């Protein structure tokens, strides 16, 4: 884990309100796993907290994150120009452990697709059945970065690109024969996924990546707690962000 001063190589809007920022690290940060994230300074000194962003692409010392404009921090990030320097703490979190699964369903909603794309690229020996959902055609992005999949379904809430619907429904309709499900997306999607698996008695192992507001990002401050089904607490930044869906309350 290193806190480095990276140089912005490129920062472009790739879809409506979604930016892709590529940063060049001064040195290697070691192996970066799919589902791991970085804690990026916004470049605005009054913003004391780093922003957690999933690793989306990595190539040597270049690493890309994609972010949706939300509040002040992502707005500051969008103003960064090539050559600007930002502090980046990485790699953080556990990432998706695909173990020996061969056929994997990938369910992504909204900004949840970014860490999933990297996870698929890192594990090109696996067969992926991918279901991505976007709000509308203006939000669709990065499809060209998705590696070869056994199945690739893109849907939008309003049907303006691909089919109409959400990623979870697309997965449930297709019902691929897989030995692992991985998912990342808004809390409502993960919640619905958990109930759907229970309802349909699907017992395929399922890993989900969670979001929580963070302080340190490394497991020291206990602000990013999520509740485990056994009643205990887990740190999203350190014990997660990826958890077995049955291990956490959603």
């Amino acid at each position, binding site marked *: 884990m290193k806190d480095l001063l990276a140089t912005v190589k490129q920062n472009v809007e790739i879809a409506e309100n979604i930016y892709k920022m590529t940063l060049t690290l001064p040195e290697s940060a070691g192996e970066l796993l799919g589902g791991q994230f970085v804690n990026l300074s916004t470049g605005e000194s009054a913003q004391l907290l780093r922003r957690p962003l999933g690793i989306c692409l990595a190539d040597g010392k270049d690493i890309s994150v994609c972010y949706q404009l939300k509040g002040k921090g992502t707005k500051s990030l969008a103003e960064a120009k090539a050559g600007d320097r930002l502090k980046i703490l990485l790699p953080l979190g556990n990432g998706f452990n695909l173990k020996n699964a061969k056929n994997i369903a990938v369910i992504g909603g909204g900004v949840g697709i970014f860490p999933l794309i990297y996870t698929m690229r890192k594990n090109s020996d696996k067969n992926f059945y991918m279901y991505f959902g976007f709000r509308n055609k203006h939000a669709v992005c990065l499809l060209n970065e998705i590696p070869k999949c056994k199945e690739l379904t893109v849907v939008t809430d309003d049907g303006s690109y691909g089919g109409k619907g959400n990623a979870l429904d697309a997965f449930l309709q297709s019902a691929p024969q897989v030995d692992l499900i991985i998912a990342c997306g808004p809390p409502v999607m993960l919640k619905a996924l958990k109930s759907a698996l229970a309802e349909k008695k699907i017992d395929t192992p399922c890993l989900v990546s969670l979001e929580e*507001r963070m302080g340190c990002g490394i497991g*020291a401050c206990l602000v990013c*707690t999520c509740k485990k089904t056994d009643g205990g607490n887990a740190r999203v930044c350190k014990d997660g962000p990826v958890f077995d869906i049955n291990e956490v309350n959603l």
Partner: protein
Amino acid sequence: MANLSVEICGVKFKNPVIAASGTYGFGREFNEVYDISQIGGISTKGMTLEPRVGNPVPRIAEGDSVILNAVGLQNPGVESFIEKDLGYLKSKGVVIIANVAGKTLEDYGKICARLNGLVDFVELNISCPNVKAGGMAFGIKPESIKEVTRVSKNSLTKTPLMVKLSPNVESISVNAKAAEECGADCVSLINTLTGMVIDLERRKPVIANNTGGVSGAGIRPIALRMVYEAAHAVKIPVIGMGGIASGEDAISFMMAGAKAVQVGTANFTNANAMPEIISQMNAWLDGHNIASVNEIVDTLTLNG
């Protein structure tokens, strides 16, 4: 290389830069970023007799140059600390300050007795609600500060007592004196100020607990003023904190009268904050031909 070592209540620190409670856990995670044996000391996450699960999330929010937190003292309990973390911290050769909290006077007495002789200091977090006194924090009124200090001191026959003062009070000088009078060996300040941040769309406070403790660079001038006042009200050593993010910030607190400093929120903004602060202090002292950091303590002169 200036001499950065300091001695407080007979305890030697290799430098005066201490991790502030609650921002640094028990040190293990920051040790994955740098070797934590470089820093002067660690004030642990606030501990209670029994484990606590803490508040619901969100527990953190951001304002301009500040953050707010309401973790609610999630901690594994003092026994877990003694069993799992104390040995680790000892192996790192840093000064160990056990930050403790309680709901009643008896809690403070018991937890201090348990830690007596095991750590280098016990730091009392008295910003917690006193359950028996209708929930008002122990640290607000001088009378309750006296009580909690006395009870804790009685249990601490071998370990120096550091009382951490809350800034949400009428007079920091009066409160510092109250702690001194009842046996505090030193005081640390400031704990967080109470604040609120609102999510306009939801028309609700961002933090689940509604209010949270404000910390970070934006509170630094307030903290500095309070450290100055406390240091000039008592004879016991004062440890200063509140928004320290650079070597120069640390030097300013020491000029105002602090013998050492703690660094909290800056650890979130910059994971290497503490080693950087130590080397910046060194550079500042070298640049001013000052041989030892102790020479700057309490050297502030007020405008006439």
